[in-house]
């Protein structure tokens, strides 16, 4: 029966090609706009940490101005308390890093400098650099092309070791295995211990303060070199307190924030212990005159962290809503056109009824027709959407910071989008199909 309905549907399209094309096009456009905005939304809101999302935690300590809270008047959605800073002071980063509770831990910040080669084998180049600790690579599941991470002992040294990105290794060593070779940075020799493979989590969740969709750093160097070389931050630095800063040490010991800390806490017990440790630490520091605000600490998992930092911006959400409203207009339009089309062909249905087709047969026949229109609309819309995503990737990706540079495209999205189209189209066809099924055959036969 279904095959017969399909044949009927196709012959109906041939009778009204313009109307059919209009319906297909309406669904296709509605669907493609939804697909483009949804992809962008999903890229921004996806979980880049995989199954590690639930065990990686970023602390947020309220070290801010007693009179003017951080991001005031924003409050935390869950607790209703004021939010706390999204970065750490040097002292606090160091103190948390000393904790034995986490399985793994990392403190880091963004710096930069000129890389060059002693043998003049490369053009000296400014490369942004992540000053970090050994666990970074294991914690964030960083893939290596050559070599591997440095070990914890290199952090303590600090040893002059560097991990290069694939791109930097290409610039400095032409892409060859450079393990054991040296490269100059801030006029010192650093030994290459690892070269990364492609590594670009979207969003860049471990450092959203410097742009959730910013480029990855070109090199990774042990954290303590930042203090040895007296490097400031190449990213965001925020300060609130009036302090006399005359040396780099003053700056490190100030209330300025530019450090990030992440901690791997596998069990609920560890998480609880870490939270308690945070509160105890702050209470202890209060005795030394720090932390003038009420006790207000947070420990965010990856999802909570992205929410706290508003990685998905409001524009992005508004666009998704707009896109679905547009799809709604397209669908209402389609309902109207289907109704017109079906009622136009009502005499034919009258004949079929007279020849013994039941109301249900007529209903199913027309619903099949709606389904075919919707499927065509979905497929065309899917292709249009792919073209749109491709265009966004090519044009806007490198151009607009607010949009993820990499818009993931997967066949799953395509399937989902086409399914939405078919469901929506069938729902749109329900009323017209029911209406035509209900019409009395006699009234059509009379005038025939």
């Amino acid at each position, binding site marked *: 029966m279904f095959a017969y309905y399909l044949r009927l549907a196709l012959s109906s399209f041939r009778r009204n090609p313009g109307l059919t094309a209009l319906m297909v096009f309406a669904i296709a456009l509605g669907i493609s706009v939804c697909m483009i905005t949804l992809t962008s939304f999903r890229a921004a809101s996806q979980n880049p940490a995989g199954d590690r999302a639930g065990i990686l935690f970023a602390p947020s300590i309220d070290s801010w101005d007693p009179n003017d809270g951080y991001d005031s008047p924003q409050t935390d959605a869950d607790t209703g308390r004021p939010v706390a800073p999204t970065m750490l002071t040097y002292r606090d980063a160091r103190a948390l890093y000393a904790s034995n509770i986490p399985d793994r831990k990392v403190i880091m910040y963004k710096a930069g400098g000129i890389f060059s080669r002693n043998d003049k084998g490369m053009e000296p180049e400014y490369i942004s650099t992540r000053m970090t600790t050994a666990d970074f690579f294991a914690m964030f599941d960083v893939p290596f092309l050559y070599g591997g991470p440095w070990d914890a002992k290199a952090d303590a040294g600090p040893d002059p070791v560097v991990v290069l990105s694939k791109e930097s290794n290409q610039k400095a060593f032409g892409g060859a295995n450079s393990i054991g070779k040296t490269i100059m940075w801030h006029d010192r020799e650093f030994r290459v211990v690892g070269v990364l493979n492609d590594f670009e989590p979207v969003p860049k969740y471990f450092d959203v303060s410097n742009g959730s969709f910013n480029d990855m750093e070109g090199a990774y160097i042990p954290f303590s070199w930042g203090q040895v070389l007296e490097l400031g931050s190449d990213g965001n630095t925020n300060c609130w307190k009036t302090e006399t800063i005359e040396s780099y040490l003053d700056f490190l010991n100030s209330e300025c924030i530019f450090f990030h800390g992440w901690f791997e806490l596998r069990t609920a017990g560890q998480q609880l212990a870490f939270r308690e440790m945070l509160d105890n630490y702050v209470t202890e520091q209060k005795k030394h005159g720090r932390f003038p605000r009420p006790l207000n600490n947070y420990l965010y998992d990856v999802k909570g962290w992205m929410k706290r930092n508003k990685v998905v911006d409001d*524009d992005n959400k*508004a666009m998704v809503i707009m896109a679905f409203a547009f799809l709604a207009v397209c669908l*209402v*339009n389609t309902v109207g056109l289907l*109704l017109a089309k079906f009622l136009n062909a009502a005499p034919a249905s009258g004949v079929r009824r007279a020849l013994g087709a039941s109301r249900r047969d007529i209903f199913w026949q027309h619903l099949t027709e709606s389904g075919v229109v919707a499927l065509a609309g979905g497929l065309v819309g899917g292709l249009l959407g792919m073209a749109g995503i491709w265009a966004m990737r090519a044009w*806007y990706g490198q151009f*607009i*910071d607010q949009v993820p540079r990499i818009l993931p495209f997967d066949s799953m999205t395509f399937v989902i989008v086409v399914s939405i189209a078919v469901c929506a189209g069938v729902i749109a066809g329900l*009323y017209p199909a029911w209406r035509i099924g209900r019409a009395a055959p006699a009234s059509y036969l009379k005038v025939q």
Partner: protein
Amino acid sequence: MEVRPILSALLRNRAGAILVAVQIAITLAIVVNAVFLTQQRVEKIGRPTGIDDQNIFSFNSTGFEKGFDFHAMVREDLALMRRMPGVIDVTPMSHIPLSGSGSSSGFYSLPDKKGKNEPANIYRTDDHAVHALGVTLASGKTFEPDTVEYVSKESQGWPPTAVITQDLADALFPKENALGKVFYDDQSKPIKIVGVMSHMHGSWVGWDKVGQVILAPRVGPGPSTSYMVRTAPGELDRLMKDTEIALRARDPNRVLNNFKKMSDDKRKSYGGDSLVAITLSVVTGLVLIFSSLGIFGLATFNVNTRTRQIGTRRAVGARKRDIVRHFMTENWFVTSFGVVTGCALALGVGYWLSNQFGLPRLDLYYLVGGVLGLWIVGQLAAWQPSLKAAKVSPAMATRSV
């Protein structure tokens, strides 16, 4: 014009009429809000920056070798570039306006953190900055060349003079002439206002204090600085290349990078806003097209199914004009019903958007415009089908379809 037969005809074709009305209602809600949001973005993007942003490029110079003399580099670079034909002026700059990267701090109108407290974008630069940026001075003048400090350490408090924007002047000293007045940093160091710029954009175009800017006469300590080069119109592309070549030749032992046009920085900074504006405009256009096609389709269908009725009316004396008027009026009723529903929906959506995303409340002018627009769209879409109806011959009354 007798309304009753039109209404009763309408009531017999409820489904089609309701669909058109629903479609118009949703269309109105989308279009009115989308145009309103687009308009805000367009206004934001179109604000004057106060800077000659079409004729400026910037780049970065960083020394990296031991014993590198940063101050000598800056002085020699500036002298060389200022001599180049086509260059109007050059200034060293700690950050690039409109770039999204910058520095800001809070300032006070009185010492000891008293009086007005206002944040400002800070640029450390030299006495050529005003000219090199192409900003206009509302009063006062720019720095005297001998007041520009070349410093060897980052933190040495503030230079004693500043050129600030009118926005900042008004914020710190409302209703007073700020020129010659003194304001204070958070360590109570006094800073005298020697010049007031009419307007200048700072680094973050999304910041509501983007127009509060301070230029401070200080260069250093290095080893890195940005330069901003203002060129004669049409000379920018050529000079971007020539400058790099000339500076490399003068001193190869430093890294020159990040050559970019200010217009590109500007475009990139407003990228999110223009993406929103473009998307909304496209959606608005498509919604309008589809709505009118939908109304057209249903009106045509309506005429097709009622040829006998039309024929009868014609046979009993209705003129062609009456038929057209009948269908146009019918359409107007349906559109109006949709428009009224749509107004409520549009206001609801506008209220929700402003609540959810902290946007300004929907301006009612847009609603009035949307209603008028949709009335016209509805009538236009019904025009051709109505004419078609008028062509139905009176003989149709006696014939079967």
